[in-house]
């Protein structure tokens, strides 16, 4: 996805430069009938640039959405498998509370270290 976006950014920069170049050439002197052919040529170039850039936008947008969807589907499958595995593992584990008490397992209270604490 990052590669796709980076490739688009590079082409976008090139397109921006071309667009600025076309705008620079798009001068009022083209009004002169003598420049009819030049105007026509410039307009054709600009229309071609515009079409190509729009196609690039469409393709990139679609590719990014598709990549996002595919990655997320992979995540979904992995996540589902992970949840199943976790449940299966913990189904097999014996919780601490299920162990019975054996002689000697009584909770031994901690004795105070200092007699002064008891008499205070």
């Amino acid at each position, binding site marked *: 996805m990052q590669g796709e976006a980076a490739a688009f950014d590079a082409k976008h920069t090139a397109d921006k430069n071309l667009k600025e170049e076309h705008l620079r050439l798009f001068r009022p002197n083209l009004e002169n009938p003598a420049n009819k052919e030049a105007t026509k040529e410039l307009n054709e170039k600009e229309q071609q640039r*515009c079409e190509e850039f*729009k196609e690039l936008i469409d393709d990139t947008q679609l590719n990014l959405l598709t990549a996002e*969807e595919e990655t997320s589907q992979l995540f*979904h499958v992995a996540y*589902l498998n992970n949840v199943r595995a976790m*449940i299966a593992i913990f189904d097999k584990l014996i919780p601490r509370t299920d162990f019975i008490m054996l002689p000697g397992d009584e909770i031994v209270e901690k004795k105070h270290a200092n007699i002064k604490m008891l008499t205070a």
Partner: protein
Amino acid sequence: MESADLSKRSTRKWPGLGPNVFIVDYGALFEDFKEFKDDEEDAAEATAPPTQPPAKGKGAEAEAPKKDDAKDNEIACEVEVQNTDHHKAIIKARNEYYQAFKDRFQLSLAATMAKYDALRKEENRFNQYWASNLAEITKKHI
């Protein structure tokens, strides 16, 4: 039975998170895909989908969730697990991180759409500007 202590039950049911949301609805996002989507829906209604035998081998695990989407899917559907703190933690983590990824997915789609739609809009605006200026310039080209 309803007054019984639920913590003493051996199993507990947890609600599902709904159907798989990681699907891009191209028909809703693009006008051009709308007709295509409608055609697909019509075709799907006309012919019932063929039932595939369960895949075996390497790809079997990856295919399983699609098959299980309707039922027996631990994410989409209600799941009944043992009533322990561990299982509770699993389900809570499942919900939390699924929601987090779902939000990220939707944000990512929205960001992609917004960025490229804005570029397309700007290109159309520039094209109109160019066309109107060209019309002004070529008035004298007879």
